Structures are given as structure tokens and as C-alpha cells.
């Protein structure tokens, strides 16, 4: 049978950005897939070499604009650890609160757009409606919805406020998540489109460097929050499922949202007790890191995010490198799409939660 070459993207609405997949088809089956990335490349790593640390800080939010707080926290954390700054309990709690709200917002957007890819329109609007609550709160405290620029080296821009909004959000969300589950989880059409599709076994997941929910939905218990110093006081159970397919990855994200709500309620408890807001801010104008190499990591919504900074003691880093979860998920598409039907290609690539700004940086 002759092979047909098909370009999926770069302007396809289901690729969430500009991902181009060069597919080779045999009939309706995909025989090979070649992801072509780089359409959204902004030179994030090179830019760091020209800018000082404080100038680079607002840009960090834009690496993954759906989960800006995570990268902001990662960058601030690297500088803090390098300079030996300790955070107070309240600042730590606020950071966890915002990270988890951000994780929920990111998963909600994923859920809406994934269901949209599968052809369901209503969940998209419901998910965006709830996400809006969270983004409104971010706007209230930080000034912008997505490019927050709220964490600074050594603390926060200002003390957290409007905590009653967060209480309201975590009161509303469980009901809404139940609605989504009534709508989606057991829906026979959804099950037919996702059950057994895009099987990612343990070994492949490990070999391709997959992290985050995608890995945990393949039965491997690896959550970097367990080792994170911000989460020391907080109890939670990582969501581990052994479905290995697109349906399991969907379920993992829904359960993770519920887990995040539990974390947020614990954090609110800490914030109620710990009223005093103190932080040790540093003057960013002459900020330099001591000579050496620094690595930090964090569990972002799309897998492990880590940063590498090499400093020669000057005002800007000598080299800065980001490791983002989506990049590895894109690479996995070569393997996971092989032998799948063209109809399922979007469902499978959608289930991996690929965000292109994070891939291209």
C-alpha cells in the first residue's frame, strides 16, 4: 500500500499552539510521526544571558503562560537558595496556595480543550467559567490574570489579601467537578474515544522522561511535591492510576484537582494561624549569584520543571536552561502515535497536555 504524508498543524486548533506533526499514513493507520517544533521559539534561554536577574523575572511567567506561577517560583527559589534566604511560613503558605490554584486553572483549561478536541462543546465553557474565578482572583492580588509577576526574590510583592475569595472558590469547585464527572467520566461516547487509546506503558514512560500526571497515570508513583520544601507541612496523596491510557490521564487530572482543593484548605488553615507577614527582600539592582551552578526543580502541571543556572558572578547568568514537561511529551508522540488510527491522533496528543510555549521556550 502506498504511503500518504499528512501535515497535522501547525495551525490546527487542536494542537494548542503551533505544533506541526508530520504523519505518514498507511490507509487510516499512522505508520510514523515526526513532531516539528520551534514555531513559538522566543529565545527564552538566550535572553537570560543579556538581562539581569530582576529584568528576567517578569519574562519567566511567559514560559508557560497557563502555569506562570510555577516558573516564577522556580526562578525565585534558585536565587533564594543560592543566596541562602529563608522564607517565613506565611510566605511559603501563600506560594503553595497560588501554585495549587494555578494547577487547578491549568487542569481546567486542559479539560475543556481536551473535551473540545473530542467534539464535546459544553464542558469547554463550564471549565472556562470556573477558571475565570481563579484568574479573577489572580488579577485581584497580582494585577494581571496570567503574567502575574507576583513572586520576588525573597518573598512576595505584597501580602496576600482577599482570602475569602479563595474560600469561595474551594467551596464552589467540588460541586462543579462533580458536574463535569456526571457529564464526562462515564459517558459512553467519551469512554469509546479514550479507553485503551494511546497506551503508555511504564517502561516507555520512563525511557522518554515523561513526568507529571502522564507518568502517574501509568502506575508510577513519582510526585516531586513530596520532596519539595514548600510542601513540608502539607499532607496529600499523589494520584496514581494504572490505566495507562487517555482515559486514565483524564481521570488523573480530575483527581489531582480534588487533591489540590484539599491542599488549599490546609494552606488556608495555616494562613489563619500565621498572621504575621515578614519577608527578607533583597535589593535586586546589584544582585549577583556567587560563582557556580544551580539546579532546582518543581512539579508543574505538565510534569517536572527544572532550571539550571551557571553563574560566573556577573549581573546576568552565564547560561540558563529550562527543563519543561511538555517537551518530553511531544517527543513521546513519535512512539505513542505509531499504529494508532488517524481519528485517535488528536485524542491521544490532547490527552498528554502539550503546551507549545513550554516546548519551544
Amino acid at each position, binding site marked *: 500500500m502506498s504511503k500518504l504524508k499528512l501535515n497535522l498543524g501547525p495551525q490546527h486548533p487542536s494542537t494548542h499552539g503551533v505544533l506541526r506533526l508530520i504523519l505518514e499514513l498507511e490507509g487510516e493507520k499512522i505508520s510514523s510521526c515526526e513532531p516539528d517544533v520551534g514555531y513559538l521559539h522566543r529565545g527564552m534561554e538566550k535572553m537570560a544571558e543579556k538581562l539581569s536577574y530582576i529584568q528576567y523575572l517578569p519574562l519567566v511567567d511567559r514560559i508557560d503562560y497557563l502555569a506562570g506561577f510555577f516558573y516564577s517560583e522556580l526562578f525565585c527559589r534558585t536565587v533564594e537558595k543560592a543566596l541562602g534566604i529563608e522564607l517565613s511560613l506565611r510566605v511559603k503558605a501563600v506560594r503553595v496556595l497560588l501554585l495549587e490554584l494555578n494547577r487547578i486553572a491549568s487542569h481546567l483549561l486542559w479539560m475543556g480543550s481536551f473535551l473540545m478536541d473530542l467534539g464535546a462543546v459544553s464542558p469547554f465553557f463550564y471549565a472556562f467559567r470556573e477558571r475565570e474565578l481563579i484568574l479573577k482572583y489572580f488579577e485581584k492580588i497580582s494585577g494581571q490574570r496570567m503574567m502575574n509577576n507576583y513572586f520576588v526574590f525573597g518573598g512576595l510583592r505584597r501580602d496576600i489579601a482577599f482570602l475569602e475569595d479563595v474560600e469561595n472558590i474551594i467551596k464552589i469547585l467540588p460541586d462543579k467537578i462533580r458536574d463535569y464527572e456526571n457529564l464526562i467520566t*462515564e459517558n459512553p461516547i467519551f469512554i469509546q474515544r479514550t479507553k485503551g487509546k494511546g497506551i503508555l506503558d511504564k517502561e516507555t514512560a520512563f525511557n522518554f522522561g515523561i513526568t507529571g500526571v502522564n507518568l502517574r497515570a501509568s502506575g508510577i508513583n513519582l510526585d516531586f511535591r513530596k520532596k519539595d520544601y514548600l510542601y513540608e507541612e502539607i499532607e496529600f496523596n499523589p494520584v496514581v492510576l494504572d490505566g495507562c491510557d487517555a482515559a486514565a490521564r483524564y481521570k488523573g487530572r480530575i483527581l489531582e484537582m480534588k487533591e489540590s482543593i484539599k491542599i488549599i484548605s490546609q494552606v488556608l488553615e495555616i494562613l489563619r494561624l500565621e498572621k504575621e507577614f515578614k519577608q527578607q527582600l533583597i535589593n535586586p539592582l546589584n544582585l549577583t549569584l556567587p560563582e557556580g551552578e544551580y539546579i532546582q526543580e518543581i512539579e508543574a502541571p505538565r510534569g517536572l520543571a527544572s532550571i539550571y543556572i551557571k553563574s560566573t558572578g556577573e549581573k546576568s547568568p552565564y547560561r540558563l536552561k529550562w527543563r519543561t514537561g511538555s517537551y518530553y511529551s511531544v517527543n513521546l508522540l513519535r512512539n505513542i502515535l505509531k499504529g494508532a488510527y488517524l481519528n485517535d491522533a488528536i485524542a491521544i496528543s490532547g490527552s498528554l497536555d502539550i503546551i507549545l510555549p513550554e516546548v519551544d521556550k
Partner: protein
Amino acid sequence: MFKNIKYLLLSMFVVFKHLFKKPVTLEYPEKKITPPKEFRGKPVVKNCKGCGICLRVCPSGAIQIDKENSSFKIDLKKCIFCGNCAYYCPHGAIKMSEEYELASNDKEDLIMNYRIGGVDERN
């Protein structure tokens, strides 16, 4: 079979429940939201001393200071509204205002001219 019908009915119920809810969107040009207090809109400068700290924290090079002519320019085409300049200004001269409708027909309109020291004089 019955299980499937049950879940389809359940999901239909969820969708129909939303028929009787108020819309969450706003008819934008007629109705507008009021931005929150911390909102980062167009930067506004007042009583600038010309110390130049904002230059050093601006990531995009949107600020231009000419001390001889005592002019202070912010290029809104370059500004990314990160709020660094307002946060680090030692005199509190730069404020991120609540103005967010910044589209213009002329590129020149997007360069905000201010004066260093004394009373403000726009354009």
C-alpha cells in the same frame, strides 16, 4: 445498555440545568468591568526625579530618559506591563493605572511623554 442510557440522561440533566442560569459574560463595549485596585494598566508618571532605577529593572527597554531635555518617555509598544518600574521606583513616581483600552491609529500616540521633575506635561 441501561447504564449508558442512565449516564446520557444524567449528562443531559447537567446541560439543561445551565439553561436557567444567568450568563457569565458581559456585553463588552456597552458594559465594562472595573479593574481591581492592583491592576497593571497604562503606566502613569508623576513627580519623577530622574534617578533611572526604572531603566535598570525594565525587561524590554521601554523607558527612555533624557536628562538634558528632562524628558521621560515610555514606549507602550515595548512595555510588557510587568510593573517592575512601579514596584522599584524609590519615589513612587510611576503608577500602573487602571486604563486598559490603549489601541490607537497612530504609533506616535503610544509613546508617552513625561517631564522629569516639576509638573507633568503630556505630549
